[in-house]
C-alpha cells in the first residue's frame, strides 16, 4: 500500500540531492559545502565567472572530477566516485560549456553514438525525435560539428544529451556566445522539454535566460551557495543583482 503511494508521488522525491559538497583542485578549494536539493523541476544556478559553477557540473557529471568530499545523490544513488559513463547511464544528461562537440563526427554520428534505449521514466528520445525538435539539424545531418553555426552547435549538444534519455539535463552556460534571437529559440526549447517532464539544472551567467526558465534561483559565490531566491525577486531587484552577480564592474 505504501509502495503504491510512493509510486504515485514521484514529485515528492528529491531527484538530485547535493549535501556538504566540497571540491579541491590540488590544495585549492573550488567548492565549499554546497548543499541543495531539487525535484523534478527546473532550477538555475547563477553567479559570476570563477565562482565554482563549472566545477559543480564536473562533480555531478564525474568528468575531470575534482577531489570531492560530501555527497551527490541522484535518485538515491551516490554519484561521488562513480565513473562518468555510469552517471550518464543513470539518467544525467550533460550539455557542457562550449558545447564540446566531436570535430571528427557528423551531426548524425553524434546522435548515433549517444543514442540509448528508453529510460525508466518512459521518455524515449530517438534521433528522429531530435530531428523533429530541431529541423535545422536534420538539414545538416552530414555536416561536421565544426561546420555548424553557434546555435546549431548548441542544438546538437542538447540533442546529443537528449538521445541518452536523461531524467535530468545539466546545462552549463548554454546561451554563451549566441545571438539574442537564437537564445529566444533555446528558451522555448527548454520550456518544451520541461513540459515533457525533464528536470533541468541550468547554470547561467545570463540572468535573462536563467530567470525565464526557472523559478528557483541559486546564487553561487566563492564556491558556495550564497542564497536562494526566486526568478521574480531576482529580476526585480537590481541591488541583489549587483551584490551577487557583479553587474557593477568593481563589485567584489
Amino acid at each position, binding site marked *: 500500500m505504501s509502495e503504491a503511494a510512493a509510486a504515485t508521488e514521484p514529485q515528492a522525491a528529491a531527484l538530485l540531492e547535493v549535501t556538504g559538497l566540497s571540491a579541491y583542485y590540488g590544495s585549492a578549494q573550488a567548492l565549499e559545502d554546497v548543499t541543495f536539493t531539487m525535484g523534478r523541476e527546473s532550477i538555475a544556478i547563477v553567479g559570476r565567472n570563477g565562482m565554482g559553477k563549472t566545477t559543480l557540473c564536473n562533480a555531478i557529471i564525474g568528468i575531470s572530477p575534482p577531489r570531492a568530499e560530501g555527497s551527490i545523490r541522484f535518485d538515491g544513488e551516490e554519484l561521488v566516485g562513480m565513473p*562518468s*559513463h555510469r552517471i550518464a547511464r543513470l539518467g544525467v544528461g550533460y550539455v557542457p560549456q562550449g558545447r564540446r562537440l566531436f570535430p571528427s563526427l557528423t551531426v548524425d554520428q553524434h546522435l548515433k*553514438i549517444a543514442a540509448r534505449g528508453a529510460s525508466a521514466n518512459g521518455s524515449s528520445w530517438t534521433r528522429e525525435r531530435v530531428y523533429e525538435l530541431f529541423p535545422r539539424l536534420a538539414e545538416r545531418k552530414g555536416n561536421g560539428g565544426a561546420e555548424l553555426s553557434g546555435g546549431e552547435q548548441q542544438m546538437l549538444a542538447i540533442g546529443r544529451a537528449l538521445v541518452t534519455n536523461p531524467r535530468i539535463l545539466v546545462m552549463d552556460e548554454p546561451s554563451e556566445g549566441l545571438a539574442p534571437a537564437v537564445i529566444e529559440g533555446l528558451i522555448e526549447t527548454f520550456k518544451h522539454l520541461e513540459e515533457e517532464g525533464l528536470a533541468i539544472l541550468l547554470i547561467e551567467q545570463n540572468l535573462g535566460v536563467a530567470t525565464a526558465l526557472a523559478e528557483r534561483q541559486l546564487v553561487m559565490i566563492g564556491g558556495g551557495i550564497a542564497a536562494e531566491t526566486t526568478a521574480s525577486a531576482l529580476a526585480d531587484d537590481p541591488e541583489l543583482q549587483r551584490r551577487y552577480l557583479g553587474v557593477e564592474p568593481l563589485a567584489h
Partner: protein
Amino acid sequence: MAERIRAWGVVGTVPRALAAGLVVFAILYVLVIADPPDEFGGGNWRTTNTGSALDDPSTFLTTVLDGLTFAGLLFIVASGFSLIFGLMRVVNMAHGAFYLLGGYIAYEIQQRMTGSGFGLNPTEVNTLEWVVPWLVAMVCIGVFGLAVQQLLLRWNQGQDLRQALITIAVSVIVADQVIAHFPRTVPAGTQQFGGNAVSISWPGWTNRLVDLHVGGVTYSLSRLVMLALGAAVGLALFLWLHKTKTGMVIRAGVDDRQMTAAIGINIQTTFALAFLVGSALAAFGATVGGSQASIAQGRDGEWLLFSLVVVIIGGMGSLAGAAVGSVLYGLVFAFAVAYLPTTGNECCTQYSVVLTFALMALVLAFRPQGLFGRAA
C-alpha cells in the same frame, strides 16, 4: 623570448625558401642531375649507381615501387602505434618489442607447420602455412598487448611519463626474453636462441617476378603483396573507424575522451579494444616484415623508431597521417638508398637513413603537429 625566436626567422621567409630549394634540388637531382658511374671508378657529387631518372627510367620506377611497397609495411606497423596514441595518448614504447615477439612467434609456428626449417624451399610454402602463423601471431600479440594495458597502464591513466617508463620497461623485458628463448627452431650448425636472424617464408606463389609492362620493369610479387596488404589494412581501418559505431566512438574518444564518457560510453572498453587491435597490427607487420626481410634482435628498436618517425611526420593519431607519413618515409628511404652519390667506399648511400630524419626535421620545422595532426 617568443619575439626573439620569431625575429630569428625560424618560420620566416628565408628558411622556407631554403627548405623549398633543398626539396626542389633533391627532386631535380633524381630526375636529371645524377650521373651514371664512370667506367674508371671514382666519381664526384653527381655520381650515383644508376644515374638520373632520364638516364635509367626503369631504375627510377623500381625505386618508386621499392618506396611504396616499404610504405605498405611501415603503415601496417605505424597505424597500430598511431591508433593507440591517438585514442589513449599513450606513446607505446613497447610497440617495437611487440613487433619482435610477434615476428618470432609467426616464425616458430611456420617452422612447426612446414617441418624443419633448413632446406625449406620458399616455393613450397603454401598460403595456409603463411596465413596461420600470421593469424596466430596477431592473436598472441593482441592479447599480450591487452594484458599490458589492463594490468599495467590502466592504473596510470593520464600519467604520461609513468606510462612511457612502463612501456619502456616492458620492451626491455620482452626483448631480453626473446633473446633468451628465440629462435627455437634453427638449421643444424647455427645457434639456437640468442635472438639471431631468421626469416619467415612468403607463400610460394608470391616468389616470382611480375612483368609490369612499363619500361621493361619486372618486380617482385611478394613486395607487391606487401603493398596490397598495407592498402588492405588502411581500407579496413578506414571502414572500421568511419562506418561502424565502434569506430565512431573511437573517433569521438580521440576528440574528447571526457565528453565521450559523459554521454554514457564506457571509454575503458574502447581503450582495451584499441590496444588489442594496435598491438595485433605490430604482429601483422612483423609477419610481413619478417617474410620480406628477417626477424632478429634489434629489430624492436628499429621498428619503434620507424613507427615514431612515421607518425611524427603524419601527425599523431591520424590514420591519413600514418598513411602519408609511411609513403613519404618509404619514398625518401628508397630514393636515398638508390640515388645518394657513390663517390667511393666512404660515401654516401649508407647514410640513406639520415635523410629520413631530415624529412622529419623538415616537417617539424613547418608543422610541429605533423602533416595531419591537430594542435594539442
